[in-house]
């Protein structure tokens, strides 16, 4: 058994040096070999790696596949996340019908019409941050000055969280999604965030405003559907999820576009919202920043890709390599903003597909069509090989993006 264990490929593998936008070559080798194979994780557990696009979609939409992290065979991302998962369960780690009940409480503000109605407010936020950036010293760090504040301001406005507290929740968000956080750090960050939101929900019950937390406090907490604590846990999920993902897409997308100046110029000069929307889909596909594999566990025996996954066995689904599969996307390693990339699985697939995706799309469309137009001379203020990429994060990106203009 020990011999077999050490022979299994360790997951995740490293990206190749000099290719920071491409998935680890070892993951793609496994994908070429078989759609489904065994891998070894940090804790020596040996779940199944479902590597190919079609099988990933099939598994992610299969009701025999569970997202419940409390189940024994669930393939945890790290010791820190394993510890955290035991405590506060959000609907991303529940199955239907419990998942659907809770998710449906928070879907309304992310409907396409509602998100489109936020465009002027998001545009103002983006314009204001660019004004400040241009008025400040250069070089500047695009992550701190722009990429993080955009989604942070937007999600704060939507939820009704005071942006003045952003240092506090941005620091704790970072600790929560870092694979290197210890169990203690991860738990402490979660407790701090939930305590903060629980107190905020308490205030919203007394003094409601026009925001999602106030609405949920009135509709769900006041009626006994949720406890104040349960709403705080849900609010924490939305706050964290709304931050790091879009922020990383903004900064990493800019880093990628700066290496493709022709396409950046096309995007900058585009007056066609469809071209911008298509470019966003392609960048989502190309970068697939949720890069450490979606995690599931089988609740029944399942035959897939020529293998039998037994009840109770873990399943790892790296969507980044599905989005680079040549059978699905021609010339997949080429960034091409004119490609129809809409079938990508960067937001996942199945009932757990990203709740905030309409908002993320609109934020990215506004950012990509505004930033390079307002700052046409935008350029990296560091050598690319000096950029520090988030290899240790659940969400990929750059820690800093020094830019000048």
């Amino acid at each position: 058994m020990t011999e077999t264990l050490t022979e299994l490929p360790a997951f995740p593998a490293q990206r190749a040096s000099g290719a920071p936008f491409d998935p680890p070559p070892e993951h793609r080798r496994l994908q070429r070999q078989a759609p489904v194979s065994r891998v070894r994780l940090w804790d020596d557990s040996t779940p199944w790696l479902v590597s190919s696009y079609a099988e990933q979609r099939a598994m992610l939409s299969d009701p025999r596949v569970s997202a419940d992290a409390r189940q024994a065979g669930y393939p945890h991302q790290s010791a820190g996340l394993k510890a955290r998962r035991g405590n506060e369960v959000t609907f991303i780690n529940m199955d239907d019908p419990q998942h659907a009940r809770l998710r449906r409480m928070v879907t309304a503000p992310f409907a396409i019409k509602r998100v489109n109605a936020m465009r002027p407010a998001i545009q103002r936020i983006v314009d204001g941050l660019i004004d400040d950036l241009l008025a400040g010293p250069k070089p500047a760090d695009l992550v701190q000055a722009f990429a993080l504040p955009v989604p942070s301001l937007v999600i704060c406005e939507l939820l009704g969280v005071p942006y003045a507290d952003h240092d506090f929740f941005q620091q704790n968000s970072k600790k929560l999604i870092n694979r290197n956080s210890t169990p203690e750090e991860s738990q402490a960050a979660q407790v701090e965030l939930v305590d903060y939101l629980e107190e905020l929900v308490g205030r919203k019950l007394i003094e409601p405003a026009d925001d999602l937390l106030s609405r949920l406090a009135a509709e769900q907490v006041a009626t006994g559907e949720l406890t104040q604590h349960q709403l705080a846990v849900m609010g924490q999920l939305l706050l964290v999820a709304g931050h790091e993902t879009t922020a990383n897409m903004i900064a990493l997308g800019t880093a990628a576009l700066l290496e493709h100046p022709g396409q950046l110029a096309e995007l900058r000069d585009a007056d066609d919202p469809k071209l911008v929307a298509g470019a966003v889909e392609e960048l989502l596909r190309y970068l697939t920043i949720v890069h450490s594999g979606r995690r599931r566990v089988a609740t029944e025996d399942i035959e897939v890709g020529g293998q039998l996954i037994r009840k109770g066995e873990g399943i790892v689904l790296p969507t980044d390599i599905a989005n680079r599969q040549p059978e699905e996307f021609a010339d997949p390693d080429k960034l091409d903003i004119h490609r129809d990339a809409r079938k990508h699985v960067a937001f996942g697939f199945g009932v757990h597909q990203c709740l905030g995706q309409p908002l993320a799309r609109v934020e990215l469309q506004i950012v990509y069509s505004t930033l390079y137009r307002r700052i046409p001379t935008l350029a990296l203020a560091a050598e690319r090989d000096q950029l520090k990429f988030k290899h240790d994060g659940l969400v990929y990106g750059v820690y800093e993006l020094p830019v000048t203009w």
Partner: protein
Amino acid sequence: MRVTVDQDKCVGSGQCVLASEAVFDQRDEDGIAVLLTDTPSAADAEDVRQAAAVCPALAIDIQE
């Protein structure tokens, strides 16, 4: 073409509305998909197929 939406399966991702605003909408209260027509015009057929292909909950069924 005849199209149906299973509202119990729908997770309100809004992907169908992005693919075809002429055929799909979302309920105000919870973002669940609703059909504006169940017999889309030939001009909308391709967009409806796209909507079915990207629906994460496999909630859209098409009969050609």
